[in-house]
């Protein structure tokens, strides 16, 4: 590995940390425009995080160490995830340590710690949130894994940069297996990031909330980390989507200043479009009842498995 690869790695992590809250702000802004509301500032998530860091932490009396440890663990796993997703360049030194399966494992680790922390205080809402989050997770996780497997089979590797490099060199044109998995991936993205129609990030209604229910007991810096993690997670999922389905524009060789000069604006454009698309989906869809969420996710899972079968059958024919 060359020094400039480490530089790319570092820039990627910093960019992810910096861009994630803005991306979240952009999605809210698009949503507001589409719904004829006055849009909040793009920087609102930043201000929110800054405000929270300044506050005094209020912690329940019976909280254990796990409760205070969890925000750091969840944040750490999400940063590492950002480091191994090729959002700008594909020569990432940290990738040898974690391939796409390990990436799914990272998301699972974050989810488990979040659910455990939510159960720690022992409130009705906390356990409710944990239960629902695990319900969403146990279907979304294998669906995501299947999506990644289709791409892995296409490019004979489970390392995300290798997949991106392979797919980026293909001629423009969508593999039928990838078409199925793209649908599956979109559904997983919506569910995993607590977006409509599975969850609604902007309400605290006990009948429907999943993600927010787990964070209710957090405050101040712990909450800030959790919010930042949420933003990072959405950013990461978007970047996985780019890496698998629209890999063009990512710098594939050893990256120089010129490569970055192309990669960063490309990423920004992709993010802007993806944010708009996400806001559109959220505006057009209605929130599902919680017990309908498994059906939604089972659809995602089936689409991904179908994609896999399509790949195998086409491979057998060709």
């Amino acid at each position, binding site marked *: 590995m060359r020094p400039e690869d480490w530089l790319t790695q570092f820039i990627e992590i910093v960019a992810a940390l910096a861009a994630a809250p803005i991306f979240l702000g952009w999605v809210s802004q698009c949503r507001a425009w589409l719904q004829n509301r006055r849009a909040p500032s793009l920087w609102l998530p930043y201000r929110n995080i800054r405000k929270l860091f300044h506050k005094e932490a*209020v912690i329940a*009396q019976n909280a254990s160490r796990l409760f205070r440890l969890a925000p750091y663990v969840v944040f750490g796993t999400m940063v590492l995830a950002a480091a191994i997703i090729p959002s700008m360049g594909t020569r990432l030194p940290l990738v040898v340590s974690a391939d796409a399966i390990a990436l799914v*494992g990272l998301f699972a680790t974050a989810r488990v710690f979040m659910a455990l922390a939510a159960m720690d205080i*022992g409130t009705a809402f906390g*356990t409710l949130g944990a239960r629902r989050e695990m319900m969403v997770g*146990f279907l979304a996780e294998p669906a995501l894994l*299947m999506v990644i497997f289709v791409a892995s089979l296409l490019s004979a590797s489970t390392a995300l940069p290798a997949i991106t490099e392979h797919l980026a060199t293909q001629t423009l044109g969508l593999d039928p297996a990838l078409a199925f998995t793209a649908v599956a991936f979109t559904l997983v993205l919506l569910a995993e990031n607590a977006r409509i129609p599975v969850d609604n990030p902007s309400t605290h209604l006990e009948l429907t909330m999943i993600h927010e229910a787990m964070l209710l007991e957090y405050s101040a810096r712990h909450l800030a*980390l959790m919010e930042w993690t949420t933003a990072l997670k959405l950013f990461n999922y978007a970047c996985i989507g780019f890496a698998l389905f629209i890999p063009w524009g990512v710098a594939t060789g050893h990256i120089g200043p010129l490569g970055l000069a192309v990669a960063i604006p490309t990423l920004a454009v992709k993010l802007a479009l993806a944010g708009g698309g996400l806001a559109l989906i959220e505006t057009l869809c209605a929130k599902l009842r919680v017990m309908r969420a*498994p059906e939604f996710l089972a659809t995602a899972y089936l689409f991904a498995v179908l994609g896999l079968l399509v790949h*195998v059958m086409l491979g057998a024919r060709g």
Partner: protein
Amino acid sequence: MTTIFSSPLTGCAGLLAAWGLIGLAGLLRPASVRFAGRTLFPLGAMAGLALAAIAGSSLLAGGTEQLVLPFGLPDLPFHLRLDPLSSFFLLLLGASSAGVSVFAGGYFRQGEGTAPGLLCLQYHLFLASMGWVLLADDAYGFMVAWEVMALSSYFLVTTQHRIPEIRRAGFIYLLMAHLGAIAILLCFGVLQGGSWQFTFDAMRAAHLAPAWAAAAFLLALAGFGLKAGLVPLHVWLPEAHPAAPSPVSALMSGVMLKTAVYGLLRVTLDLLGRPVWWWGLVPLILGLFTAFYGVVFAAVQTDMKRLLAYSSIENMGIVFTGLGLSVIFLGAGMQAVAALALLATLYHCLNHSFMKSLLFLGTGSVLHATGERNLGRLGGLIHSMPWVAWLTLIGALAIAGLPPLNGFVSEWLLLQSFLFADRVPHEFVNLLIPMGMALVALCAALAGYVMVKFFGVIFLGQPREPSLAHAHDCGRLERLGLAWLALGCVLLGLLPFQVVAALGAVTRQLVGAAVPQAASHWWLLAPVPGRAVSYGPIIFLAATAGVVALTALVVRLAYHQRVRRTPAWDCGFGSLTPRMQDTAEGFGQPIRNIFQSFFQIERELPAPSDRTPRYRIAIADRFWRTVYEPLGSSVQRLASAVAFLQQGRVSVYLLYSFVTLIVLLALALFA
């Protein structure tokens, strides 16, 4: 001493004998808990460590050694053999039983069922017989060891024999163990191939017709599958494993199930030699179904030990999936991938023995501290039992398959071998394999659900019963045992390269290939040549821990550290009681709803007008009603039909003898 330990095989045999002697020493002072607990069990643990060391060095050396003991049947003395396969399983036995034995030394108390001295004998006999199963090199010795293992564990299961449910569980266990033993016996009968030689060497040399070879394989699968809890032969497992005292549950789930895997590997890949590819389909499909069935049932259990028993069924399903995959690849002539799948299988066995022993021991400590096995009456124990809670957390995260712990490594390897499988020369298999991959991924994710439920309901939240306030952490020996197993989970997760290299001897022996390793990176697991596929848990952990530490440091430096402790906010509702938390039933509710058709559910719902509303739900295994109860009643009917022969009068029996004599004479005259 020097002569015994000069060769690994005599060393192992000597240590098994030492286990037997330690057990017998328990009878010297049968009523003394101190003697058994403080002296004998730790001694047994040391013998286990020594066994692991000898077996480990023999595994690294990769040699094979045979020995004929001067006792046994007149014309068939006991044969012993130590090869890489048995070395690996002996290593597993020694290393994980060391932790369990140390824990057991602090666990057993006065006045609980069987006397401590007798318990010590049964326990060490159980250990020694498992070791003997692994060393046996003839069918006779194998069967004797197998039966001793079943019987000693039966007595251990029924330690608290005054409780009727435990007697019933023990009976079912004994019955099923013997059904399995019959299948294994028949399998050996087929394997000798008309030579009537019952040493394994003779079986290796025998040439079987394809149909007979398939029969031997299926018999072995039935017999060993029964021991491993393969669905639909699993019904005894969730009864017997939880009924035993926790260290024994740990041994049964952690180690004894692996002897079944050993047996099937020995018969299929060693004694039969050249498996046909379609054999692998049977364990593959059964294994996938078992894994899914086990994890779904684990998610809805309310008894913590039953939950773990179902989770064991799941894990054995995953192991059998890997085994089936390996056989398919081997049959298709793809030795390199077969080695990878076999590696995943073996690795998962090793992992599961540590993780599951750790979790069962954790439940043992909880049981002792609270007297409660029902998840719905526990909660908040992380405050009063921090040692048990944090060590159990490691086991729970590991078994949920989260990186960088050990459960992830074997699942990663298994998924890699599935991914590698896109070119089997059988179309049907090619379509089946993606489905298998999807199911494995689903099971792994569901295992996370199960473990959040298990850990969260027991250790987190508020105590659901007032009596839990008096719970105490476990003693020093118990801590040592738990810590040893947790350390195993961490190390097996962080150093996969070394484990894979050591397992090379086993895969080379069984499938004739080893998973290649680039020796330049000792910290990196890259098992698939020619593909950019790698996993480096140490960097993974270092990077995550680095980010976590850096974040904590930055937050500490840049911002104030003010923390205020208040009552829980809970959206301002105010009157928070422990009853408002999810019970085990509540936490399992989504799974119950989604997979309704799997369960046989009995619901008792309150009416709106009830003054004292009662909600009860009971979940049973459909196999009991659809398979086992009809089977049992038909056996009963057959037995009562035959019973008319048993008149109970001497004259009638004399008449039978007389008639038999006449018939025989007639046959002799006319034939």
